[in-house]
């Protein structure tokens, strides 16, 4: 799939929750070919920011030629992003990386924090075929179910404080879900500790599991080696190029 670097027009940049924003851009070139799990390197022309910032594609509309990102304001770059206005241009480099293998018939998606974002695109593609288990700190952070409503089959929710769904972590609820339903695959994205936990449970239950890794990135093209990581069979891979999606047993 050819990568491009192109000025996209911003269509919308609105808050979804506290410190979480949704950015939509008109970018037919990327919308026409990107796959779930891929990401884009966005250039933010503000202040003294030099490098691009990687964001997963949270959704896209190939027909309309639009791409959507969901991001958390965490540091200088994402803070500057919140001030972007509709009609402004933002340079997009993508689509980058390898997406999820979309081979499952009956998968369970598991997301934590902003790791839920790329799963939205997965659910969209699987069009009602996938269940999603999502975890967050509290009810206020859980604007996600509404976004998944049109795409997901069943939605399971855990919150740390029990203010929405089941109290606890996603991995607390997972064993029960695996008993209820014969999932043929797990696709997980979120904090590394959560992905490790899920991968362990999946391995025990002999369910194939895909994970999406996150590393600091400069080029996003496999050239700078900022994002190298070890595989379990002793190879060195680049998260930006060989990932960000891997089979759990490859890298965890």
């Amino acid at each position, binding site marked *: 799939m050819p990568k491009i670097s192109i000025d996209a027009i911003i269509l919308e940049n609105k808050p979804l929750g506290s410190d979480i924003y949704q950015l939509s851009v008109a970018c037919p070139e990327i919308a026409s070919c990107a796959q779930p799990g891929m990401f884009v390197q966005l250039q933010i022309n503000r202040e003294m920011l*030099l*490098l691009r910032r990687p964001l997963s594609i949270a959704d896209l509309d190939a027909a309309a030629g639009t791409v959507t990102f969901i991001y958390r304001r965490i540091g200088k770059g994402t803070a500057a992003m919140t001030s972007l206005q509709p009609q402004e241009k933002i340079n997009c480099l993508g689509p980058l990386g390898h997406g999820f293998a979309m081979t499952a018939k009956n998968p369970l998606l598991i997301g934590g924090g902003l790791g839920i974002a790329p799963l939205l695109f997965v659910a969209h593609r699987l069009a009602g075929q996938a269940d999603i288990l999502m975890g967050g700190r509290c009810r206020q952070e859980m604007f996600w179910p509404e976004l998944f409503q049109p795409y997901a089959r069943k939605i399971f929710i855990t919150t740390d404080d029990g203010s929405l769904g089941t109290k606890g972590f996603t991995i607390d609820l997972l064993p029960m879900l695996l008993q209820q339903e014969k999932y043929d695959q797990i696709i997980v994205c979120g904090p590394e500790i959560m992905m490790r936990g899920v991968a362990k449970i999946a391995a025990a239950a002999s369910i194939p599991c895909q994970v999406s890794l996150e590393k600091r990135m*400069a080029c996003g093209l496999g050239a*700078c080696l*900022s*994002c190298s990581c070890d595989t379990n069979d002793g190879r060195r891979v680049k998260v930006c190029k060989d990932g960000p999606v891997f089979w759990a047993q490859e890298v965890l």
Partner: protein
Amino acid sequence: MEQSALLRTELAGIKMQSPVWTASGTFGFGEEFTDFVDLHRLGAVVVKGTTLQPRRGNDGVRMTETPAGMLNCIGLENPGVDFFLNDILPRIQKYGSNIIVNISGSTVEEYGILAEKLDVPGVAGIELNVSCPNVKDGGIIFGTDPKAAAAVVTAAKKHTSLPVILKLSPNVTDIALMARAVEEAGADAISLINTLLGMAIDIHTWRPVLGNVTGGLSGPAVKPVALRLVWQTAQAVHIPIIGMGGIMNADDAIEFFLAGASAVSIGTANFVDPAITMKIIDGIADYLQLHHLNNIEELIGKMKL
């Protein structure tokens, strides 16, 4: 005049389509950029620092942004020279650009062995990295001591017929001293600058941001320092210079030519815009045309005092 005629040039016997190179460690093996760059138009692709044995590089965070710059401590991750020769070189040769291999040794002898192994068709030259700030044995001593740097050049020259380029570290008191030493030892060209040694601390965890504590600073932030070092080096030696450090556009490149560089190398800018080298090449051609110059040579070292 046609663009290609304006830009065509030669350096240390290497015939080049343009005086624009890509800097080691910032352009992979070139193949990562084929969606954006016509590699054939580059003067040379300098590939990632290569060592005798494969290296996995540093652990922990390897990159962090700084004002108008970035720090990296990749630590010379590379698959080793044999893998490069057997698996990578055959694959990237087809793009038709000059391939320069950047090498690092832990000892003077290693530079000789590497130079010998790389003296094969398809490799256009060797760049000796004596200044990687990110590995303990990565040559930093060779990069700050004129005698050691000269010894490395001598060892490489003895074992290869290819042009040998010595890459200088900016982290020295007297760049002219270093440059003259490597010129006397027979280097065919000098490239500079490698990264400036820098650091960042996470004020939440009280730990260094980078896994290796310190890292190499590159990008536009360092350009004024790089340009000064290239100018000082050009005053000190007669061999050609490949200038780099923070070049982001054609105007920046022109400054380096005026300061005395015979070619420029583009590093960090490739991360900002993967097509940047093509834009810089076009911009240089436009500048030459605008100023009624027939060749890049008419710019080199022409700063008036």
